[in-house]
């Protein structure tokens, strides 16, 4: 088990490095070096930037050095908490992204919980009731749900909300709490607004998980150990929940690793449509305005957190499955 964790942690290091390189490339790709952009931006705002200051900045970002040195400088700065400067907001990146990333993660994790919370029992129910009308209805809904593109659903939901339910233009907070400092009441207010984005982001994941859960449970239900459990005199519910469901849960939970990137992805796009104060809109504005430090930091942190989440879920899973825990798996 310890070996597995170690191996798994080591595996994620090159991935993290890879992500940081991609993020750095995104800073590099637009034409012109970003300091020139920064300087001209400042000048256009009527602020003066002296040559000395410019030189100092150049040295700080190692702009006079080769690209790989620039990368190393950038990533060391990053790890020390200095994520560079947002040209557009003219603020340090770190001061801009904290709360948004936190909110993004809250929405994503909540979506994950709701997805599994709905999909697992529904999938089990559907498999136990195979070929009844309720199973057919669930299967059909899940079938359609899998293909629904979340941001279009968001768009249509928004339209219906504005048109028929007189809802505001989305967001996570009521007007009263929009700029209020964090408090218990604000958290409650946020949770009240959270259900809509969570449902919209979660639709396709939930539908997909229902289908997988149903299929794997059905597979397991026909295995001899279930019959053996029944032959032992176990009640049907216990025989199903304790054995096949327990076994079927593993592959479901092991896909958290794939689920998380998808959800974070969906969150980015849906939050743009629904106007959530999460990473989506700010990342978007950063990309549109070529505010590359901000954009790269978002991508780097979002992706790293996703990798981290995947890592944690994998380790939890290994801990739950004796076949991995004892390294005896096929």
């Amino acid at each position, binding site marked *: 088990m310890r070996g597995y964790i170690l191996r798994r942690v080591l595996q994620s290091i090159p991935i993290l490095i890879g992500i940081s390189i991609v993020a750095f490339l995104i800073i590099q790709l637009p034409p012109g070096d970003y300091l020139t952009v920064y300087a001209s931006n400042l000048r256009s705002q009527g602020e003066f930037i002296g040559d000395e200051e410019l030189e100092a900045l150049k040295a700080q970002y190692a702009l006079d050095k080769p690209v790989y040195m620039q990368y190393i400088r950038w990533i060391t700065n990053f790890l020390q908490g200095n994520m560079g400067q947002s040209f557009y907001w003219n603020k340090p990146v770190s001061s801009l992204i904290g709360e948004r990333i936190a909110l993004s993660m809250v929405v994503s994790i909540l979506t994950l919980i709701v997805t599994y919370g709905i999909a697992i029992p529904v999938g089990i129910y559907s498999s136990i009731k195979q070929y009844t009308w309720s199973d057919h209805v669930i299967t059909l809904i899940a079938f359609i749900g899998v293909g629904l593109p979340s941001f279009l659903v968001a768009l249509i939901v928004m339209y219906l909300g504005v048109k028929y339910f007189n809802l505001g233009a989305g967001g996570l907070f009521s007007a009263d709490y929009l700029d209020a400092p964090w408090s218990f009441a604000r958290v409650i207010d946020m949770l009240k607004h959270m259900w809509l984005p969570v449902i919209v982001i979660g639709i396709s994941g939930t539908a997909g998980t229902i289908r997988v859960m149903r299929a794997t449970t059905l597979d397991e239900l026909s295995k001899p*150990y279930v019959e053996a459990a029944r032959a032992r005199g176990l009640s049907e519910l216990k025989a199903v929940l304790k054995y096949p469901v327990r076994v079927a849960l593993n592959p479901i939970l092991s896909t958290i690793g794939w689920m998380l990137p998808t959800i974070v992805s969906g969150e980015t796009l849906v939050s743009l449509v629904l106007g959530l104060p999460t990473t989506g809109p700010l990342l978007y504005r950063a990309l549109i305005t070529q505010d590359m430090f901000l954009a790269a930091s978002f991508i780097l942190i979002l992706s790293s957190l996703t990798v981290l989440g995947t890592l944690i879920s994998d380790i939890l899973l290994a801990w739950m499955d004796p076949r991995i825990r004892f390294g005896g798996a096929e």
Partner: protein
Amino acid sequence: MSNENTNGHNMLVQVKNLKTHFFLTEGIVRAVDGVNFYIDRGRTLGVVGESGCGKSVTARSIMNMIRPPGRNVAGQVIYHRQKKEAQGSTVTEEIDLLTLEPMSAEMRSIRGGEFSMIFQEPRASLSPLHTIGTQIMEGLKLHMDIDDEEARQRAIEQLQRVNIPKAEERIDAYAHQLSGGMCQRAMIALALACQPALLIADEPTTSLDVTTEAQILNLMRELQDTFHTSIMYITHNMAVIAEIAQRVLVMYMGKDVELAPVDALFYDPRHPYTRALLRSIPRIDDEREMLAVMRGNVPDPYALPTGCPFHPRCESRLRVCSQPVEVPYVEVSPGHFVRCHLYAGGG
């Protein structure tokens, strides 16, 4: 009240005219279609027949665990249950298990407690995610009023009883950590944990190698001697039957074609199917160069032949055999029953 029935047997389970059908979209499969037999106390009944002849479905019907789309459409499974009275005398009551709800508390206490079952694939019959100990203790706690500590102690004893070495450690092993033979030993330990009156063994050694098979058979005989458990042993291997059973039921396409004491079956088989089966066993003292092979193939379960289902393959068929009439069930000698037109006159 006497434990002896009219034939002088001490019966534990009596199956009368059992019919279990499966209602599928493609049609009705009459997996078991009128089967009669009985299992004696402390004795072994062997059940033989080709794959798909209804052996396993019969076993599951006795356990009353047929699930939709299958249904027991007719017949009785009478369990002669012995109860100790306060005065120390034993009383036998007769319960028709098929009248009980499959998932009722009473049926569940019989299933696993008084009747238990082991299966063809021992490893697949154990949960991959639970230790064998958990599964043995689960059965013990379900049917006996004992706590965790005692259940664990008994589980270890059971594992020792089935000759699993280092039982104190193996109790925490998972199925994937044990060999197939060890898994079947664990399954037997599990099945016998509550000292059941009947053990149904559904081809328990089919997936094991010959040496392990012999060990398991020995073990089952020993345990039977110790606990006086009745065994219903399902197999398609005649050699195993000869070794373990006192009575034999031969099944073909859901019908009981012959029921006989083991010696009578091997030395005086009456049904043409039984004869053909026995002819197809290779014998070490046989001079023949070629092994006899039964003609034809198992019929399509959706479209059984009319009359006796064996008649298309039968070497001694009569005109009446293909007629849609009930095939007579005849007791050719005491305790030896045949379902065949050849013996319509009484043998």
